[in-house]
């Protein structure tokens, strides 16, 4: 089979592959936002992405090329409660389509009722994100990251730790999966394995691409798509007065981005002065940012700047859901950091010594604040929120 040949080649020429990948990554891309035309050398070229205008091609791991069959399998798995220990939760329990694949809770709640320290992140455009979660630089690939919600125990999310054999048995017992696995992993590869499960889920997640908001229409020349307030908000967003774009720039409104031909993988984590409980920059445990992973004190309070696409439907905000509305988020940044006057988290975030240099008082007028919020609301892609391709496939039959 063709697939087997390709794999044998991959093993035999491992070093060559590394070189090819490096070469591809280093190729010049004339305009970062230019529509990436499939080139014969990219592994993504066989798959039809149906990308929004101007969107580049996502990077896909060499050992998990995209296919429609894999996406369909992944979609079934994503919505399947067999993927939790007690059969009550699926990936979609915390990543809901109408919330841009985030949820409405301040912090996630897992299948056993345990609360996650941080909020569920939106999966919109996750294919473009080389760092996947709020505060773990080690989480770089969806195939790998899926193991944390599946098997993690601190906190328990899906609660599958120690149940890997049972998970595979449950999946094998579903008739519909026989067809889906055979189509997604043809030939002798069609086995129900943990690797195939995470590969298929990752393939589905990579299709969750959102780029058809009013703002996108406006950028394509449909001037009426944004009202005057949102247009003023856009100008402010990209102005030095607010510096928003430094951390939320680019087509996906985040500095942590990668795509085919980008050349440089960018991963950023920032301390935004949300807390300062000891005057030395401390954030309340266990949400100390990437410090909790790197053990580097300089990393205290550093979190990923999430994409702002669909931000209006993913309230409440920040890694711990501690800000309820977009208006209050603007107030936090306008003040150059949040001040908490009383309680265990009291402190002046604006004085956080580890704060990003771009977080500083803005002096926004009330109208300017309203304009910024109007702009942020223009990033909601209602097509994406209701796209039947991303909906629960178990409900439709």
């Amino acid at each position, binding site marked *: 089979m063709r697939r087997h040949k390709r794999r044998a080649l991959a093993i035999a020429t491992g070093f060559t592959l590394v070189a090819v990948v490096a070469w591809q990554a280093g190729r010049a891309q004339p305009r970062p936002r230019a529509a990436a035309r499939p080139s014969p050398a990219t592994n993504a070229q066989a798959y039809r992405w149906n990308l929004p205008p101007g969107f580049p091609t996502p990077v896909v791991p060499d*050992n998990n090329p995209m296919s429609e069959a894999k996406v369909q399998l992944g979609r079934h798995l994503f919505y399947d409660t067999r993927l939790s220990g007690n059969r009550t939760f699926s990936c979609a329990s915390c990543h809901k389509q109408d919330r841009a694949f985030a949820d409405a809770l301040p912090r996630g709640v897992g299948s056993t009722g345990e609360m996650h320290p941080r909020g569920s992140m939106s999966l919109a455009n996750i294919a473009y994100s080389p760092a996947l979660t709020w505060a773990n630089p080690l989480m770089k690939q969806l195939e790998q990251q899926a193991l944390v919600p599946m098997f993690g125990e601190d906190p328990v999310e899906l609660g599958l730790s120690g149940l890997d054999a049972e998970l595979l048995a449950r999946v094998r017992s579903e008739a519909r999966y026989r067809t889906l696995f055979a189509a997604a992993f043809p030939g002798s590869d069609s086995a129900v394995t943990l690797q195939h499960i995470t590969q298929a889920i990752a393939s589905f997640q990579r299709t969750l691409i959102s780029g058809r908001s009013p703002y996108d229409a406006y950028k394509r020349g449909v001037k009426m798509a944004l009202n005057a307030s949102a247009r003023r908000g856009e100008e402010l967003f990209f102005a030095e007065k607010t510096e928003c774009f430094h951390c939320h720039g680019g087509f996906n409104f985040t500095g942590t981005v990668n795509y085919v031909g980008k050349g440089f993988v960018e991963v950023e984590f920032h301390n935004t002065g949300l807390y300062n409980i000891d005057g030395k920059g401390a954030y309340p445990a266990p949400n100390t940012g990437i410090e909790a992973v790197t053990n580097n004190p300089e990393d205290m309070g550093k979190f990923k700047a999430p994409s702002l696409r669909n931000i209006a439907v993913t309230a409440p905000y920040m890694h711990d859901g501690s800000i309820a509305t977009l208006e209050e988020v603007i107030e936090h940044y306008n003040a150059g950091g949040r001040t908490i006057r009383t309680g265990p988290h009291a402190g002046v975030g604006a004085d956080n010594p580890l704060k990003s240099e771009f977080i500083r008082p803005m002096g926004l007028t009330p109208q300017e604040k309203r304009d910024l919020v109007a702009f942020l609301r223009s990033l909601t892609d209602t097509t994406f929120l209701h796209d039947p391709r991303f909906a629960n496939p178990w409900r439709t039959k």
Partner: protein
Amino acid sequence: MFLTSLFTAARVAAVLASPLPSPAPDAAPADSLVPITLRFRATVGAEAFQCGKSYADIGTSHAAVTASDFRFYVHDIRLVNAKGDTVRAALAPVAPWADKDVALLDFEDATGACSNGTPELRQEVSVLAPAGTYHGVAFALGVPFNRNHGDLTAQGAPLSISRLFWSWNAGHKFLRIDMRATQGDSAASAWVVHLGSAGCTGASSAASAPTQCTNANRAQVQLANFDLASDVVVADLAALLARSDVRKNQPQTAAGCMSAPNDVDCGGLFASLGLAHPSSTGADTPRFFRAAKASAVRTANGSDR
């Protein structure tokens, strides 16, 4: 199984960069190697470890604990010969317990409180070493670096156990002992020991595994005066917890110790393993591993396996 998995380019590079499976420089030619069995026992003080059994007088607060897991990985086995020289002993691959790099010891049998475990037990490590008389043994607790950070979904045994995945640190738990400890009000709450490499960072490229860990946490164990025929390596939970208060947990940290440098609950455990930690309870902390005569150590079921 391992070779048939789909490799990423980074993974192939990592495998090719790892040491070739050639004999260590100080090893004898393969035809003169003999199989040697290194026996382990899990105890709680003088008692054999058993899933779900309650053990009294544990730690500084004399708590009662009931454990629901007890497993660890070892690698880099060495033997000390009559001349006092250290000789590398090659791991003998024994599916599913050991491959050429790493071996799993498993003292839980999936009964009772250990229901998320595996029924099979493993209380020995098989190695190949030059024939001779040995008086000491040494090994490293954990998974070697070049095997610790691969694709968790593509691992063969013994690294394929999801309970020992440490996904958020892109590696494996080296030692896992889960417990519930009685509290002041007699309720029991979780207190776990999850040892593994922490503070791991990597290159920024899309798929790369960690390239270094500030806290590798691979404990080096050396046992002198060890007779392979009559002695066993004892892993004693009571000794591991001797300087820990399992009725308390530092607020806003993992229940027990998940290897965080800022978790004071790790101090006694790390000292017991000979590992550095900011809250270490010092060099006189009783050690988790010790040598003992096999005849003096009770086993839960009297069997070796």
